[in-house]
């Protein structure tokens, strides 16, 4: 084969959206080239059209609503758009393979891992049953799944998220495709797993010499893996070039803004809170979840989500709870707000033990401690207007309805939304705006403590930066204390004065953020910090007027 032929060559690609969409073209004039052995990152925020690009290459767009209007897609010199569906079917999974974002939903829950890997071989090869099985086991070994033989018979729900993504990769690579399209393959994974998967993709791709089109929103991941970068903004290619150039010397103002929004890994200067009064004290919290099982199942495995956890939160302080999924950090946030009953321990707010309160007292105490949730769409009642959503808490607590609504409008201004937002419904807002409404709703009760559980995880980086800044500003202006739960150490570094690092329900390290970042004591903390994507890359400081 001619070594100079690019694996993928996209010229002037235009993808049309149905009438009534926010713009006529999801993608407008994309030019992109992927050479053999090259990893090209396609970067953009949600709605930039990056996933539709993958759909167009695979010819799996939801036609006829969304279709290629113009342009050419050449795969090893062959025009994909001109191929028959039968030819295309033969190429999919064989010479072009795709890895998807969410490995849980991307695998069929009713079929075993082995069956699903086997399917690729059955579709594209003439191999016999035992040969196929040997190949599948070999592939599982290649993606470093422990005990491939039992993974072969396992169902997707029986293996961990990281292993599921390994299975997806094994599936994509089993026929040594020339082009691999990876659509946010690590977004749903923990940082440590993410790093392993990124390394695995890199390693396997180097062995096979395939070209990779890597779609991501995360510049940290880009810094980790990309040879070349293309930046998309609302369907338009704004900048393209070698990774080092884009990361360190971005030219286009949009790229510059995106990179500037990435939380730097430099924690705030330590502030002294020793004199500040304690607003919340948690002592000896324990929570054990009984695993499912009934009368005849014999042994019930108990899962310790939180074991013997204590901490204090002082006025004006932000305490970060960090850890990977399953570390118990969300359980802590639920216990502290008593949305979940703790087995033992106490949570003292305003001199009262929240965990010992009667239901009546608890309702009164709720005004002191409020929550901001991860998914603002799911946590705001879609049938209520914003004004009612914000005012309902105070009204329940006896504030005059008219006054409460008046205050709701003021709160909207405080979270930098227009007061006109008061009469609209949650679905009319963007994700960032909805999270602002969530914050306003929490503030309406004039709490002392706000417990925020992954409040910015669902947001794009540029929006994330704004919401984090807002939270910081409000904390300082209103003298609030924040208990901030997050999996993202970059985010934690932005806002938290102190950190609690959790692993399997236990605190492994706690201390001032700056000190933990500079000199982590526990090996797990070190591992977490080392796994932050792009930790070796310091985003350039770009002055907006420099250009």
């Amino acid at each position, binding site marked *: 084969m001619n070594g100079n032929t690019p694996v993928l060559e996209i010229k002037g690609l235009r993808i049309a959206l149905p009438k009534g969409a926010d713009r006529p073209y999801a993608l407008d004039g994309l030019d992109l080239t992927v050479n053999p052995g090259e990893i090209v990152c396609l970067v953009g925020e949600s709605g930039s059209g990056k996933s539709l690009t993958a759909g167009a290459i695979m010819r799996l767009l939801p036609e006829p609503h969304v279709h290629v209007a113009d342009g050419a897609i050449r795969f090893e010199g062959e025009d994909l758009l001109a191929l028959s569906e039968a030819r295309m*079917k033969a190429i999919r999974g064989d010479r072009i393979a795709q890895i998807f974002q969410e490995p849980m939903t991307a695998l069929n829950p*009713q079929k075993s891992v082995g069956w699903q890997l086997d399917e*690729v071989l059955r579709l594209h090869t003439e191999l016999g049953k035992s040969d196929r099985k040997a190949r599948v086991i070999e592939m599982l070994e290649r993606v470093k799944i422990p005990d491939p033989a039992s993974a072969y018979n396992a*169902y997707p729900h029986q293996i961990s998220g990281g292993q599921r993504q390994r299975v997806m990769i094994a599936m994509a690579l089993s026929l040594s495709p020339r082009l691999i399209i990876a659509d946010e393959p690590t977004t749903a994974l923990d940082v440590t797993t993410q790093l392993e998967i990124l390394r695995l993709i890199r390693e396997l791709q180097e062995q096979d010499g395939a070209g990779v089109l890597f779609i991501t929103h995360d510049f940290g991941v880009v810094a980790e893996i990309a040879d070349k970068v293309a930046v998309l903004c609302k369907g338009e290619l704004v900048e393209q070039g070698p990774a080092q150039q884009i990361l360190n010397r971005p030219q286009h103002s949009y790229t510059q803004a995106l990179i500037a929004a990435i939380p730097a890994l430099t924690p705030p200067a330590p502030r002294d809170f020793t004199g500040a009064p304690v607003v919340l004290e948690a002592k000896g919290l324990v929570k054990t979840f009984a695993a499912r099982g009934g*009368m005849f199942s014999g042994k019930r495995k108990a899962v310790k989500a939180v074991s013997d956890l204590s901490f204090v939160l002082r006025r004006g302080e932000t305490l970060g709870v960090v850890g990977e999924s399953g570390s118990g950090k969300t359980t802590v946030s639920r216990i502290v707000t008593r949305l979940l009953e703790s087995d033992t321990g106490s949570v003292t707010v305003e001199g009262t033990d929240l965990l010992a309160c009667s239901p009546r007292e608890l309702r009164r105490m709720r005004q002191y401690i409020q929550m901001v949730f991860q998914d603002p769409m799911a946590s705001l009642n879609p049938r209520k207007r914003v004004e009612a959503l914000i005012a309902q808490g105070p009204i329940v607590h006896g504030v005059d309805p008219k006054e409460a609504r008046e205050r709701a409008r003021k709160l909207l201004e405080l979270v930098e939304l227009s007061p006109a937002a008061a009469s609209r419904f949650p679905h009319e807002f963007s994700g960032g705006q909805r999270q602002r409404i969530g914050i306003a709703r929490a503030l309406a009760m004039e709490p002392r403590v706000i417990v925020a559980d992954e409040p910015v995880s669902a947001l794009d980086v540029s929006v994330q930066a704004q919401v984090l800044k807002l939270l910081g500003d409000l904390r300082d202006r209103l003298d609030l204390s924040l208990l901030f739960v997050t999996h993202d150490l970059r985010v934690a570094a932005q806002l938290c004065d102190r950190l609690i690092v959790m692993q399997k329900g236990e605190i492994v390290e706690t201390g001032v953020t700056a000190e933990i970042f500079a000199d982590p004591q526990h090996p797990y903390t070190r591992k977490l910090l080392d796994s932050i994507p792009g930790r070796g890359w310091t985003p350039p400081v770009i002055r907006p007027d420099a250009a």
Partner: protein
Amino acid sequence: MTLHLPPILTYALRRLVQAVPVIVLIMIGTFLLLKLAPGDTVDALVGDMGGADAAYIARLRTEYGLDQPVWVQLWLYMVKLVQFDFGWSFVYEESVATILLERLGTTLMLMATSLSIAFTVGCFLGAFAARRAYSLTDNVISTVGLVFYATPSFFLSLMMILLFSVQLGWLPVGGIKTVAGFYTGWDHVVDVARHLIMPTAALSLIYLSFYLRLMRASVLEVADLDFVRTARAKGAGETRLMVHHIMRNALLPVITLLGMQFSTVLGGSVVVETIFSLPGLGQLAYQSVIQRDMNMLMGIIFLCAIIVVVVNFLTDLLYARLDSRIELA
């Protein structure tokens, strides 16, 4: 010491034990119904005999345990039910259990065939319609299904009799077999089958649309899921997608409905059996209401409740077999 049974057996055992309180509740429920009804067995008996003196009535009450406190009566009632002793039918001059057993076969046959047909055809048509969603074919299938669903079963049955028996003379009007036919062997089977065609068709046509609509919605939902996209990206064709990836997942909610529907179909069979004069439980129930045969009625209610519990138990087992996500241990 722990017993090491295969997981499916342990699961079955556990579900069986869970069914016990349900059955006890049904017993208490039917007992209370009996108590709430004006008059008791002795009143009915005496009424039947045309009156009796107070001493005789009192003796009968003692004999039947009716002078005992209510909870003792309940206990006696439950003990009898467990022994499948439903009492005596004064209408049939026979024990209720014997009559029920005679009639059970016909009803079960009618229901099993109707439900299987409704389920299979409904699921197939539903999946077919979903693959062509919002097209003319889809609209025709959905509308016709809805028409049958909206048609009262008695009307549908009568119209069928008019068309196929009276006008065309293809099928018998009613009954389970030709009265003076005396068929044996294979001829008997064919004869019974001919008698069952119309009632089965009437019942299944009505319940088919449930499965059709649910399957259509379920297939549409599953077809949009990520793993279907994965399968497409692997190069799987549409038939393969449908059979291996979509159907298997889309069937699960429909199977849940299958168990729940059973009791409704049992209710539907009362009307159909009565119209086609099929000697089943439904017809028996109808006659018992007319003739105020309380014992018979209680027996039917209890038996039907047990059937529903058993069928739900079986659907749970089936579901557990089909859904790999249900951990049996």
